[in-house]
């Protein structure tokens, strides 16, 4: 609070539509109001999100590194033991940087769910057919959003690299090795090299997103643990944990390795110097939180109706903008994620949902809105991290610097002025 008064003393109040939010950000807070209820919700949902995420990143890496260009990847969602036991680089005893104090292998709740699901213990295939499983399609959709928006966003060097001669040469080696004993595909590769290269680029994005989420999962687990231990005093604490986390792991390399018959092909070597922050996190936030593509159940793709913008930069359909109310019906993709999180809600969140709206029956939407709140918190962390990295401290004595900070905050919040943005809604507790 002291910081806030100081800042206000130095700068006149903002005239922005969301002046309250701007002032909160300038005081080191988040876009999400700081209430115990909000804190409880976002931490609870982080935990519920992290468990399927633990599946996502393992499977994404498995697909990128092992399944690779299999034309009929029927079993790509069946993670082999090797990848379930793959050590997360940011959890466990042998971590590069121990963010979560838990173990490095797959989360026990995830393993339990994979074994028993919501029904009974039965073979994997039956679980798959019963749709009693993690909706990996959601992760792939996020990957596709990053791929499709990749070139236009201008973040990092990852996407331009995919078009470089060097990348094509690396990919060529891997593709030839992969189809060494498959003359049909080899012939096809000769005829349509671009077909395979484009698939390979997609695989590189699988790897990119997998490596990104490998970090987010332990971050969220740790936040949940800290909260359970009574560690966070408010939403800003949680956000600051995220900000610190972003910096701590900013330098994590982003790469794409493929393992073919025991040999590693470095399609994107670590030595390219691609970093978590620039090549994965920022593109991810832009592509998935902000942009993605319109849900077919809410927008017409009719070219004459002009409901889909002409330019990718005008796409604003991410979770920060999405209408969660239709979740559960046809054409609303986040339903897959909401369903995934439904399995892993912490008990206090289940109790909380039972007390509101329709309780058990509309938990899918209640948790969706909680998720939206929590993603506003994550986005706040990204905004604050960018401010730390590129601008000035909040207590900078130079008013010009503070003005620059404010201009930055206002520019960020301007993106939520659109009518469909949910920033307005999450300010109130009645939005649930």
């Amino acid at each position: 609070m002291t910081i806030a008064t100081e800042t206000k003393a130095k700068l006149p109040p903002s005239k922005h539509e969301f002046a309250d939010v701007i002032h909160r950000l300038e005081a080191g807070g988040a876009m999400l109001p700081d209430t115990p209820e909000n804190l409880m919700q976002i931490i609870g949902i982080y935990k519920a999100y992290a468990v399927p995420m633990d599946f996502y990143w393992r499977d994404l890496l498995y697909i990128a590194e092992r399944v690779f260009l299999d034309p009929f990847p029927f079993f790509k969602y069946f993670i082999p033991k090797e990848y379930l036991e793959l050590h997360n680089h940011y959890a466990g005893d042998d971590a590069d940087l121990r963010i979560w104090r838990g173990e490095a292998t797959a989360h026990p709740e995830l393993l339990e769910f994979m074994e028993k699901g919501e029904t009974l213990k039965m073979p994997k295939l039956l679980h798959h057919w019963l749709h009693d499983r993690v909706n990996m399609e959601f992760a792939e959709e996020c990957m596709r959003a990053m791929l499709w928006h990749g070139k236009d966003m201008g973040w990092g060097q990852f996407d331009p690299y995919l078009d470089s001669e060097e990348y094509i040469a690396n990919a060529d080696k891997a593709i030839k090795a992969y189809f060494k004993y498959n003359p049909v595909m080899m012939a096809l590769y000769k005829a349509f090299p671009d077909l395979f290269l484009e698939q390979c680029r997609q695989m590189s994005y699988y790897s990119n997103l997998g490596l990104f989420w490998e970090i987010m999962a332990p971050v969220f687990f740790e936040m949940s643990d800290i909260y359970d231990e009574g560690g966070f005093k408010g939403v800003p604490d949680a956000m600051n944990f995220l900000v610190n986390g972003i910096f701590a792991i900013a330098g994590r390399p982003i790469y794409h390795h493929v393992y073919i018959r025991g040999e590693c092909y470095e399609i994107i070597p670590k030595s390219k110097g691609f970093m978590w922050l620039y090549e994965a996190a920022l593109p991810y936030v832009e592509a998935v939180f902000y942009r993605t593509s319109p849900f077919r159940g809410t927008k017409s793709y009719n070219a004459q109706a002009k409901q889909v913008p002409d330019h990718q930069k005008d796409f604003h359909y991410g979770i920060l903008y999405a209408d969660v109310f239709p979740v559960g019906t046809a054409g609303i993709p986040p339903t897959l994620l909401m369903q995934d999180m439904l399995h892993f809600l912490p008990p206090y969140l289940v109790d909380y949902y039972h007390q509101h709206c329709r309780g058990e029956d509309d938990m899918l939407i209640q948790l969706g809105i909680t998720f939206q709140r929590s993603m506003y918190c994550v986005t706040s962390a990204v905004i604050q991290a960018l401010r730390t990295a590129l601008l000035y401290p909040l207590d900078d004595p130079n008013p010009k610097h503070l003005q620059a900070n404010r201009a930055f905050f206002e520019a960020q919040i301007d993106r939520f002025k659109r009518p469909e943005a949910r920033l307005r809604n999450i300010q109130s507790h009645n939005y649930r």
Partner: protein
Amino acid sequence: MLSALIWIPILGAALIGLWPAAIPASRARLAALVIASSLIVWTIVLLSQFDISNAGMQFSELVPWIDTLGLNYSLGVDGLSLPLMALTALLTWIAIYSTNESVERPRLYYSLILLVNAGVIGGFLAQNLLLFVLFYEVELIPFYLLIAIWGGTTRRGYAAMKFLIYTAVSGILILAAFLGLTWLSGSSTFDYEAIITAGLPLTTQLILLTLLLLGFGIKIPLVPLHTWLPDAYVEASPPVAILLGGVMAKLGTYGLVRFGLGLFPETWALVAPGLAILGAVSAVYGALTAIAQKDIKRMVAYSSIGHMGYVLLGAAAATQLSLVGAVAQMVAHGLILAILFHLVGVIETKVGTRELDILNGLMSPVRGLPLTSALLVLGGMASAGIPGMAGFIAEILVLQGSYAIFPIPTLICVVCTGLTAVYFVILLNRTCFGKLDNDTAYYPQVKFSEQVPALVLAATIFFLGIQPTWLVRWSETTTNAMVAAVQINVDRQLANEIFDGNQAGKSPPVFAAVKQKL
């Protein structure tokens, strides 16, 4: 056997209403449900015992009552009244079940509903004209009270009074016709069987028949005598609206066929063209007014006017097919109207409005009312005559049966099924489709028990649509006999020559025959 159907509800009503000790609402409801269920069971027993190859009255009961007046307690059931009786039993149960558990003054409410039930069933069973009028008038007062006390808004008093006056006049007209009929035909009693109009001069018959038609026309109701209907249906609470539209209005159509067609086989042909046109006009009028409505309950109410037009058309044409169709349409319409009113009621309780411009996106599976919406789609489409549901086969029978006699009104009615689709699509598009409003869409959930009536009705509608034999088999013999009577009375010889009963399209040219005779 039949008396039980009348006296069980009356006794039940008395029991619930007059029980000395205080009964909690749930107990009253339970008692009413038990009575209604026993009526259903009893009806099923009757259905199983009923001989469908017999055209005449079955299970007849006759107790002389007031000889001097010619009033006898004479009951009987045939293929015309049986399906309607079964419908009444089912809809009474539905009405009781779908009543809000915390209804005010539950004892009075449930006893009134049971009284209504007794009155209507009595009307269907009465084989004495005076007895019929008695029952016909008896159910008015409970209905009046049900609308006036448990009705919707401040207009309920107005609606109830309007309803009362209209239908009372209807009763008076019918009474007048019956009195005149018995008096002029020289019958010593009012027993249905004893009355023969054949000897009366045509003019007299026509006047009497006109009186009857006006009386029943108010009840059905036909345009332009319908103005009590939108108010009464809309102001009544959904269970009462179900009884009004599903059950009570059927007394009108039943009376039309039973007493109009049944007692005046000779003159029927004379009024039939007018009736057919009136049927078509009602259908068009109901459909077009429904399109313009902004209130879904009012829309459904007007749809009722339209659908009654088909019944009228079928009755007017009076071919074997059209008459079976008309009876089937009465049943189908009762079921469909009931499901629609019930669902509209559910929507109103949960969402708090019936305004088309406010409702939106109720199909949404988590926050909306998905099952209610799905059933509403079904009900609307059944009403619009989509095959596979009860409404379709009834309409087809009426239309095919009437086409040969009244091609133009029939084709107009075909157009009306299209218009019906228009307003139901408007209703469904606005209510079920679309997006929920984030500011308001925190509706309470529909409990399973609230869905039960609609599920039962939907299952019945589907069953009768897929197995329509169960809809028509009861009435076929009776209606055939009635049609035969119309023709035989016109000209026995002529009828014998022409009537071969093979093809609907080759129905004898009744009207030509009548004209010749005139």
